[in-house]
Structures are given as C-alpha cells and as structure tokens.
C-alpha cells in the first residue's frame, strides 16, 4: 500500500521548535511576577513593623 508523502517528524519538530520558547517565557514571567509581589509584601511588612515600633503599637 503506498504511503502518502508526509513528514513523519512534523509533530516532534513543531513541538521542539515552537513550544519551548513560549513555555519558558510564561514560566519566567510568572517567576518575575511572583518575585515582585514577594518584594512588595516584604516591604509592606517592614513598613508596618517600623510604624508599630515608632508609635509603640502592638500587632494583634
């Protein structure tokens, strides 16, 4: 039976050529966003602690 001329490596090649860059970009962007949000949270906590120390308030 004749087999239609076709590129048998098409799925793998597309997967390896196209997906990794987009996948990594999303992962990197997520890591960057998480890091930025963690910095904001830390600074807020530090500011709160400084205010409480300055005015003698306690964190309930």
């Amino acid at each position, binding site marked *: *039976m*004749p*087999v*239609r001329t*076709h*590129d*048998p*490596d*098409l*799925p*793998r090649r*597309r*997967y390896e050529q*196209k*997906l990794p*860059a*987009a*996948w990594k*970009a*999303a*992962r990197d*962007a*997520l890591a*960057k*966003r*998480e890091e*930025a*949000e963690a910095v904001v949270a830390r600074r807020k906590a530090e500011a709160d602690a400084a205010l409480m120390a300055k005015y003698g308030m306690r964190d309930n």
Partner: protein
Amino acid sequence: MYATVSEYRTRLALARGLSDDQRAKAEQAIRQAEADDLRAGTIMLEGTSASLAARDEEMANETHLLADAFSALTAAIERPDTDLGVLRDAYQEFDSRARALGAQITSWSVTAARLREQAANPAQVAEDLRAKWAAKSVTNREQILHLFPDLP
C-alpha cells in the same frame, strides 16, 4: 489457520454435549470475533496513510495552539493589574498540557513508525492478524463460557 478455534469448536460440539442452538450461538460468537478483527485490520490498512498524516497535523496544530496560549498568558502575567493567583492556575494548566503533549508526541512517534511499517508490508499485517485470531480463541472461550456458564 483456525486450528485453535476449530479445536475448541469441536470440543464444544462433541465433548460438552451442546444442543444445536447452543452450538450455533457459540459458532456465531466465534465468527463474529473473527469478522470484527478482519474488518478492523482492513480499515486500519486502508486508512493508515491518511490517518497518520491527519494525526501528525493534529498534534502539530495542538503545539501551535498551546504555544499561542503561553504567549497570551505571558502577556497577561506581565500586566501588573492581573490577578497572580488566577495566572498561576492558568500556567499550571498549560504546563500540564504541554507535558502531556510532549509525552503524546513521543508515544505517537513510536506508534506512527510501526503503522508506517505495517502500511508498507500488508503481507506482514495479514500474518499478524492470523496470529491475533489464534490468540482470540482465548477471548472466544471466555465469551462462550459466559454464554454457557453451566459448562465445566
């Protein structure tokens, strides 16, 4: 070619003392199983070429869609006003899909190579079907025992 099936058919008919009706049902079950396999094998060979290409295209397209989805997700993640929790969940979903697609493509490349080889060797496929029919007698025996549970 049907040595195992014929043997069992004879054993059913003679050693078990089946009624004509029971024997007819048993033989019908055997014929049906053989016919199903032959039909499946024929369809597989006829459709192999086209289905291989179609499946390849399908997975290549899925890769495109997923890569585009990642790009859209990246753009959303980079906007500071979008909810990080929602984006994290979306990333996990796409990440799972990308991993599954990778596994699927790896598995498919093995299957596709085997199917291409089969399509190029129809005589070998016929031989494999004959071997499968011989093994099918086990299934037939189970079917027949199910049909006639009072058999020892």
